[in-house]
């Protein structure tokens, strides 16, 4: 099956693989590299990785379905990850998540990541982001926002365009 991986990305992946005594050990890193580039991991991406690492696709499907940070579906351009572990939950992260969802017209009750139809926003609950002392926290793409109030969340949404 054809899965076009740009030469630069493949070179990066080859370098990753070379770091490990066994190719297989690079699985998670290779998947991250592919996800960073393509946004999510398709069946073709897993099959490509299997060929690359002399594995069977099932070996990679096991990893991709095990780790919540691997995605098999595309996410929005702005990915909001709201922490729901204890400290944040006590500090109001569920209300925050509910607020964001209603604001964006998403169903707060549905499990898993929710994406707006225009593909701009994804809201998702995640587990502890290791910033419990500033709960509640969320991440917008790769940036951490601390002690987030609903008003600040609205502002974040406005700034994201």
């Amino acid at each position, binding site marked *: 099956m054809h899965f076009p991986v740009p030469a630069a990305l493949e070179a990066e992946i080859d370098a990753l693989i070379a770091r490990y005594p066994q190719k297989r050990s690079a699985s998670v890193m290779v998947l991250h590299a592919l996800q960073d580039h393509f946004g999510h991991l398709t*069946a073709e991406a897993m099959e490509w990785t299997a060929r690359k690492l002399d594995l069977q696709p*099932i070996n990679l499907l096991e990893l991709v379905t*095990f780790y919540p940070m691997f995605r098999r579906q595309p996410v929005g351009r702005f990915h909001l990850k709201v922490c729901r572990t204890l400290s944040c939950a006590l500090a109001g992260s569920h209300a925050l998540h509910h607020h964001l969802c209603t604001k964006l017209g998403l169903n707060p009750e549905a499990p898993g990541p929710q994406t707006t139809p225009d593909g701009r926003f994804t809201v998702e609950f995640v587990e502890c982001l290791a910033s419990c002392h500033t709960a509640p926290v969320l991440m917008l793409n790769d940036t951490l926002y601390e002690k987030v109030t609903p008003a600040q969340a609205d502002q974040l949404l406005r700034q994201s365009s």
Partner: protein
Amino acid sequence: MSTVPSPAPNSSPTPALGWTPPPRPTGAAAPAIPAPPAVDTLTVTVNGRPVTVPRLTPDWQGKPAPTTMLQACAAAGVSVPHYCYHHRLPVAGNCRMCLVEYGTPALGPDRQPLKNPDGSLVIQKSPRPAIACATPVTPGMAIDTDTPGVRAMREGVLEFLLINHPLDCPICDQAGECKLQEYSVEYGRAASRFVETKVHKPKQVDLGPRIMLDDERCILCTRCIRFTRDLVGDDALGIVHRGSYSTLAAYPGRAFDNNYTLNTVDLCPVGALTSKDFRFRMRVWFLKETKSLCTSCGTGCNVLIGSRENVLYRYTPRENDAVNRSWLCDFGRLNYKWIGRADRLRQVRVRGEPATWTRALAELAERLRAIPAGHAAILASARLANEELFLLRKLAQHLGAETDIVPRHGEGDRFLVHPDKNPNTTGARVLGLAAAPPGANLPRFAERLRAGQLTALLVFGEDPLKHGFDPETLQRAELLVVSDLLPNGAAELAHFVLPGCAHAEKRGTFTNAHGRVQRFFKALEPPGDARPETEWLGELWERLTGERASTSPERLFRQLAEEVPAFRGLTWAALGDTGQDLPDGPPPPER
């Protein structure tokens, strides 16, 4: 005190498939037997009783590995419930069913074991339990499998295994041979305390052409994954998702279809993996089990026939370390349906007319007496048993007949399947019924028939029309005798049609491609007139020669072992369940 067998020496390099075939006898000279090495043992106690075990025990690949608590318990006659552990698979240690409590000898300040006043060791109990399947024993270790703590752990493990289980035993094929059922009865709680909503998982997953998966029943022991990955070399299965959503799966779009998939049905301790061929056909507790052999290739895998009311429902593997260990190939396992075919030959016929055995055999003996020596040929089959071939050998000698068999070559593999597709080529060769190479006489038979030099052809279990004879040639025979199980072209031309028995309908022995002589037993009654070949061949012999002949396979085997040097020293009784090798091994291959 009891002991477990000492480890086998690890003689050859690790094969790719995780198993080293046992060494085969190579020549007539008996090898000098080296003195057995002193086995390094240690003593532990199991539930207070001392048991001495070797320090090392062969692991799943036959390599010496430290003896585990589970093996020590087995040596002490104490069974420890387990799911993920299987003696032929790598240890995974994931199900926790085998948890036991244990202690080790307490040491004094001088690092010497402390003793009680009565001289016994002071045991320091471990604060934590350990999984018996993966924990090596150490000298003086005290293992306890029957404490309130162990009982509570077993109960706990079972309770967790059942929280998302559908509890559908009444419609589950595994019921009756399900470890979850058995252990729940023996070690579990009587009632469920689970009031939450169960996680639902895929049901009726079409895993491959022969396997149906019910993920809700799976207890995630990974036996199936390890078998196909580590023994077959087909890394086809895995567990996807996480926690209580963990789901056994093949990669979407990839069928689990290697030639050994049905072994995972046997390995699966629960009803998650079921055989499409067997599911919903019969409750296992109704099945009568008969020790038999697979006849689909020269390996001669040991099987148990499961039958009820004269219907064969399944083959399951019967353990034999020297032949098939615990496995069967899918092809051989499913190649049983012909036995119950509705069009089996069931009528004795003489020139197309139904006849009784008495009349047919009397007439046949008369016709055979009239054939001048050298004018008959016997086309035997390497699907016949040693005892039947032995009688044919006597008949051939009496008639001065040439003999041969039909060779069947096909694909072999590195796991079980042998390229020889006959179950008893070796028997036919050592009994002198096969030409060298087997099949070499067939064209000559046809030629001699056409030339009028052969006037009688006796065919057993083969269709000459499929092996180079045309109907005109066969019709040249003044006497054409066909004994077979299924209708074929030659039977239609035959003067005598004598219906025979499938191996499942009689007793006997086959000699596999490696020279192992193995017994099989009768599970079913043959259809119609069909009778075991030894019976009517013996009767024919008597009519022909006036000499009494044995018709029981046991007695024939004794005669055969006396008269045929290749079988010398073997006895029916000593063959036991797993067979014995020909004293000189199989004859060298000839092609």
